[in-house]
């Protein structure tokens, strides 16, 4: 007779991803419970909640279910854009999804209003990275930010080469 399956000790809850998320004891306890049960396919509900609050008047309240739906919608948004970006890279035989791919996908999928702010943001990010590199090495680098994976960034990106889609294919 097989012994009943013994489950190991419960895994420790993941560390609080955003200690700035809650402001009082009850909220922190609820936040920790939520984090412990949160699928990793979603962004933490505390962060989602803060973004939502930034859009609303001071006295507005948000139901838990509303936050959960926005949480789910945000993951869908990321996947939606990612899928389109990934397709673009496949078509153009590139391995690495970069900023331009993401911007291009947003334009294609109807998020035109996002392009202005995001292009500006990307430019600021690249300039900041460039400045940090120059400070560190004392020489001006001409490489874009290195890939977050082990391999080196596949393509060199020059600041200013923004918002335009990749030159290959298309």
């Amino acid at each position, binding site marked *: 007779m097989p012994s009943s399956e013994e489950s190991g000790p419960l895994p420790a809850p993941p560390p609080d*991803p955003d200690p700035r998320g809650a402001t009082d004891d009850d909220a922190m306890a609820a936040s920790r419970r939520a984090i412990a049960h949160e699928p990793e396919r979603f962004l933490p509900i505390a962060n989602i909640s803060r973004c939502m609050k930034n859009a609303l008047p001071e006295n507005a309240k948000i*139901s838990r*279910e509303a936050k959960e*739906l926005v949480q789910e919608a945000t993951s869908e*948004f990321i996947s939606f854009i990612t899928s389109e970006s990934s397709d673009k890279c496949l078509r153009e035989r590139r391995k690495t999804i970069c900023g331009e791919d*993401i911007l291009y996908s947003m334009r294609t999928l*109807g998020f035109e209003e996002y392009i202005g702010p995001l292009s500006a*943001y990307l430019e600021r990010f690249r300039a900041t990275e460039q400045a940090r590199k120059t400070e560190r090495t004392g020489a001006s680098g001409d490489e874009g930010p290195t890939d977050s994976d082990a391999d080196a960034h596949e393509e060199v990106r020059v600041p200013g080469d923004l918002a335009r889609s990749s030159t290959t294919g298309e």
Partner: protein
Amino acid sequence: MEDSLRHLWSQKLAECSSASDFKNHLLPLARIKKIIKSDEDVRMISAEAPVLFAKACELFIHELTLRAWAQTVESRRRTLQRSDVSAAIQKTDVFDFLIDIITEEELLPHQHARPTPLAFTRNGNLAE
């Protein structure tokens, strides 16, 4: 609401044009990266990708929330409910990709989860 949105985009453009802190984000980069990489077709992503997505998600959440709030105000409430978010999704073309996360019960009148098949009369005309 259209005014609020127009104002939102110019406000966000101003913010983004002067952004300088790329270490602290409203949304955690590591989790964003996990979600991106959950797509099997994705191989490598540049370091800027999660950073850009963090800001993009901020914009997305902000727009969705504003549109949902318009429903809340219309119903003369001060608590944003799930049904407000659901209505905003269904009323906004660019949010069509989200239709699958809305349950049957939440569908607004005249909306369909799946396209209804067209019916034709005997002589080939579209049936009403």
